[in-house]
């Protein structure tokens, strides 16, 4: 056992244990760690956003190079639009904030719709047109049939123009079973994600802090 002598590791380890103490019950140590986390996170993101986004994209190019009309105009425009967003704090001028919001709303959907239509609609339809019989590979054949049946049954479940009765109701019910399986898989992955985060913290405590095991 080689206990860490680094203050940063100790602070990190004690804060981790402080947060874990909530599992027993809510307590002042947990509250302290929680508030510290919220405050530091906010400060961290402000600094990160300034140095990662505002400074390299606006401040440095605006003030760090000799003035040229074209170049600086291109930078002043987004600066003004960004400042307009703060006009929401002033009731008489809050209409100014609609301009930058309109720009964001105009650009992003245009950009995303084209990509989404290609990857999530056309390519997905293409990917679900599968042969029911793959010569010499019964497993692949079974998988293809299952996928197409599951897809059709689930689509029927989301078809609300007719009442889910009789044959339509039966197929919709099969669709529900397929959906349930997918929710189960998502839940299983979520459990794995949470356990992985716990493993990451325990590895840190055992390795970097206590020095019991080296990973």
């Amino acid at each position, binding site marked *: 056992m080689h206990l860490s002598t680094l203050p940063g590791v100790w602070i990190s380890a004690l804060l981790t244990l402080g947060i874990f103490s909530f*599992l*027993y019950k809510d307590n002042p140590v947990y509250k302290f760690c929680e508030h510290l986390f919220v405050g530091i996170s906010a400060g961290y*993101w402000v600094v*990160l*956003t300034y140095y*990662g*986004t505002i400074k390299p*994209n606006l401040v440095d190019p605006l003030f760090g190079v000799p003035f040229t009309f074209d170049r600086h105009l291109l930078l002043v425009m987004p600066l003004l639009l960004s400042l307009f967003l703060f006009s929401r704090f002033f009731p008489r001028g809050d209409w100014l904030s609609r301009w930058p919001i309109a720009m964001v709303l105009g*650009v*992003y959907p245009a*950009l*995303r719709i*084209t*990509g*989404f239509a*290609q*990857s*999530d609609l*056309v*390519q*997905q339809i*293409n*990917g*679900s047109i599968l042969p029911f019989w793959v010569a010499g590979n019964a497993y692949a054949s079974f998988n293809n049939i299952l*996928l197409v049946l599951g897809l059709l049954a689930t689509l029927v479940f989301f078809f609300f123009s007719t009442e889910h009765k009789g044959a339509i109701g039966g197929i919709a019910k099969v669709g529900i079973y397929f959906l349930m399986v*997918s929710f189960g*898989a*998502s839940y299983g*992955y*979520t*459990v*794995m*994600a949470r*356990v*992985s*985060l*716990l*493993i*990451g*913290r*325990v*590895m840190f405590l*055992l390795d970097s802090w206590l020095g*019991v*095991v080296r*990973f």
Partner: protein
Amino acid sequence: MSGLTALRKLDRRWIFLAVGLLVVVPLAVGIHIAPVQPSARARGFYDAIEKVPAGSTVLLAGDYDPSTVAENYPMHLAAARHLMRRNIKIVGLALYPGGPPLTDQVLRIAGGEYGKKEGVDYVNLGYKAGNELVMSQMGSSIPRTFPVDRRGIPVSQIPVMRGVQNYANFPLLVNISAGYPGTKEWVQQVVSRYHLPMVAGVTAVSAPEYYPYLQAGQLKGLLGGMAGGAEYEVLIQKPALATRGMDAQSLAHLFIAFMILLGNLAFLGEDKERRR
């Protein structure tokens, strides 16, 4: 009240304690339950990198930050090791503001192991705000989107960036993703528009969302969470953090599955008693 219905009154802290012990003990003692078996998804990831000719340059996007290090870092490091072992050059970047230091760390560790030089064999272009806009702009010109690397050196002076203009210069995109912007956006903006082959290593929570992309061939391989990372580490024959966490993961999963079964039985028992 039967034993099973009494379970519904069980203090949940006993379950927390059990999960805690099932994670701590295997990690501290080093219990080995079963070897990690690579899945077809992880093999697809591995094969896609194996197919890249040595000497090529691959785009490695590390879109995550410290909050998902436990899941994303092992697969990021394994991918960098695999690429460098195969003498493939790396252009690293991040669309998460907290990502560049992690990319630095991964590239330096892997670079040190395989004797690779920063600027010559790999470069970290750092972070650029704009999400999909950055991806889209890179399709026109990468040097215009990232005029300097993370150290502030102009890309025109970086040997590994010579000849890199846009996506056409990469045979593969490797994305390590924690959410937005990440794998979904790379598929939508780059794979579908520029037809660049892509593999992804993602957090377990988001993995089911990407299975349709894998099934449709938009992703050549997929690593889901720590388990996916472990499978990939086995394939590159470099067991590391993810592989070491697998026994704790398996035991915790078995226990949680057992408790779900028990909880449902208890519910059924209580329902039966209520009907009586």
